[in-house]
């Protein structure tokens, strides 16, 4: 398993090189550059030329890419063109915020999805099954931005429990921080819960009809023990796969929630970098989000072996 993990980690290098090269070329192919965005309607060629020269944007595309790679190897992710801020510094700040949001959302999703999915599967076609599936259908159908606004209307404007939007760091106090993160985390988690509930239910339904579950029951094992120890563990394999993919997508995909709740996360950073054609920022964002995506998938693959001893990578 160790050899397999190392091989996968080594594969990360050409994968990331390919991704960054494609993105770099694509960014150059679309109209507009950071200097045009910077100067806007005050754009004039002479000033623009001077600024381009300052940031090396007047070099041929491949030279720019190689220069960027060269700096990256030395641990220098470059500076944002518009603000002059260090890309790695900005990304690390925002990655922490997004990671908290994603992990929180996944915890919310699991807290809802696993009990609801089990309940649904063990009592199919009953009121609890219909309730869980209706909730799941609602979660899948309601767009996140709309769900977020509904939660704000209820919990912020009507009940006044949570702030409408914004972000406060832990240094402002735990309650201040958590109260700002509660609604975005729940909004993001609820949609994921809806997807996972349906998955847990279908997976559990398949597993509990297996012979070894009947055997466990015929041996007199308690129903709770049968469900949690025998059925759930095996039912979790597809759930873990989907969860892994979801985490990968969420690194850059939290943009809607981050915009609705003004959370300074990585998704918001990436979109704004692309919109302003800030190449070093875009490359940094792509590098970090694709790395997280690939690494999460590797972790998911390794988790299979833990969940199912029949799966081996040697």
């Amino acid at each position: 398993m160790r050899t397999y993990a190392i091989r996968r980690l080594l594969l990360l290098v050409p994968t990331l090189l390919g991704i960054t090269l494609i993105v770099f070329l694509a960014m150059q192919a679309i109209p507009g550059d950071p200097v045009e965005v910077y100067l806007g309607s005050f754009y004039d060629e002479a000033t623009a030329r001077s600024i381009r020269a300052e940031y090396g944007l007047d070099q041929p595309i491949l030279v720019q890419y190689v220069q960027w790679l060269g700096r990256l190897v030395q641990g220098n992710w470059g500076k944002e063109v518009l603000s002059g801020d260090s890309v790695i510094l900005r990304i690390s700040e925002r990655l922490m915020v997004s990671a908290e949001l994603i992990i929180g959302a996944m915890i919310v999703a699991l807290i809802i999805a696993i009990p609801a999915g089990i309940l649904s599967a063990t009592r199919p076609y009953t009121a609890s099954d219909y309730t869980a599936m209706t909730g799941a259908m609602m979660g899948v159908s309601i767009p996140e931005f709309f769900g977020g606004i509904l939660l704000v209307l209820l919990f912020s404007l009507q009940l006044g429990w949570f702030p409408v939007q914004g972000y406060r760091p832990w240094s402002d106090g735990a309650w201040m921080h958590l109260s700002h993160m509660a609604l975005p985390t729940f909004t993001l988690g609820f949609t994921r819960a809806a997807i996972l509930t349906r998955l847990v239910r279908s997976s559990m339904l398949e597993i509990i009809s297996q012979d070894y579950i009947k055997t466990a029951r015929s041996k007199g094992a308690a129903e709770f023990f049968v469900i949690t120890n025998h059925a759930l563990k095996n039912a979790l394999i597809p759930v873990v796969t989907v969860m892994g993919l979801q985490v990968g997508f969420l690194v850059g995909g939290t943009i809607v929630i981050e915009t609705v709740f003004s959370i300074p996360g990585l998704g918001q950073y990436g979109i704004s970098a692309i919109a302003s054609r800030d190449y070093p920022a875009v490359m940094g964002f792509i590098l970090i989000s694709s790395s997280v995506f690939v690494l999460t998938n590797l972790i998911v693959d390794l988790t299979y072996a833990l969940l199912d001893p029949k799966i081996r990578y040697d």
Partner: protein
Amino acid sequence: MRRILAVIVSVVVLIALGAAPGSEAAKRGGTLKVGMEGNIPHMDGTIALGTPIKFYRETMGAGLLLLDENYKIVPDLAKRWEVSDEGRVITFYLHEGGTFHDGTPLDAAAVKWNIDLINGRVVPAWLKKARQKNPKLKFRSSYRLYLYQIKKVEVVDKYTVRVHQADVGKAQTLPALAGYFTRLVLVSPTAYDKAGDKFKKHPIYGGPFKLVDYKPKRHVIIERHKGYFHKDRPYLDRIEVYYMPDANQRLNALRSGQIDVILNVPKGLVKTLKRTKGVKLYQGKSATTFAFPINNQRGPWKDIRVRKALVCYGVNRKLIVRTALRGLTVPWVTFSAPGSSDAIDLSAKCPFDPAKAKKLLAEAGFGPSKPFKFVMTINNTDPTFVEIAQVMKTTYASLGVKMDIRVVDRATWVNLFVRKRVTDMSLQDTVPVLDTNSNSHTFFSKTFLDYYMMKDKKLDAMLEEWRSTMAPEKRKAISHKMQTYMFDNMYYAALAGSPYIQATKDYVKGWKFLNKLVFDMKDVWLDK
């Protein structure tokens, strides 16, 4: 007994007067929380880059002059000024004792340094250093567009400064200093000279508030500056500006009391806010226009018949104002906006007349066998653009004109519209216009920024005449002549005024609504 009665009556009258709404005594202290839709990549106010940076620059900074709510030029750092030598010389007498936020003196020498920096007569140390690496490096302040005429700045004494100007341009100095989009805000020479990069993150101005914390895409926190030259201002202790890109969240934050002010209320939310208790809306005659600029030098647009058909008679402005602009403004066809100081309303001359438009197009060689086709390129920063474009597309279709809509992001739009100038037609919410001259770089062919592509020497001459005429009434007459000339040639495709609305909680007092021309927060206070 009579004396006692008189005293009681006097006291009652005084109390009543004290409670009258107009005579409320301003309270000091408190924190004002503002919701801002736009993010700024840095805080360097020497280059104008849109409304959000203008808000920060002017809230923290001081200039020489200001506008009052009637667009009259009033003192800021200059407590008075004298114009002599037929307008070629202006002497400014400055308030004494003020400092920049770094404690350095805000005096005549600092004013001279700032104007010389703008006009390239001073090269800051950081730029000299950077030029050793890259000799081509240039610094061009956008303020220079309207202050290039200042040829010499003379320090008369510590608090008196005199500017000597060229003839052409001398008339624009006072309005440009007071209320143009690129209104001059003074920077600390010491701080700016040392480090351009550091200044970008932490600008040092000389206004009523100083920067405490700036986190891009999160917040900007500013606090009262104790060295401000008006010793009894500002009233507020602190202003916190939060980045809120989502319009609904700004609305909800205002309703819940999380913020006190929305600087730019989206048109679609005005109705809701009008119904919200405890909220006050500010709206005046708009100083900006919604325009659908055409490229006057591109293909068939060179033909005045095409321009008249599609810019004048073929556009149902009333319908657009009623639908996409929610009835919040008026149809408009001239360069200065309805609320500008030299506005001239010629919209009656441009009624929606499809028959006339068709006839003009036919004369220009376009008809059922050869329909006029073009693309409108709009950016995705304002949902109103799409709504307006859809209405125009439908209207043009009824004339047999085929208009395609291309929606692009702002970077692409700047590339196509401003830099390459390859669009047929676009949509634009213009910068605020105090007078016709204040946004004239967009049509003055002697600048490099004339993306409206009018390229008309007669118009350039009229503009230079405006810039050389000191008498305000004469200037207004030239401005009207210029706007009528543009209208007769259909160079400028104005659509309507652009409604700009601000909202505050009702306990926010002393708020000045200046249509984005100037942001002045020193008199704002909280009655709570």
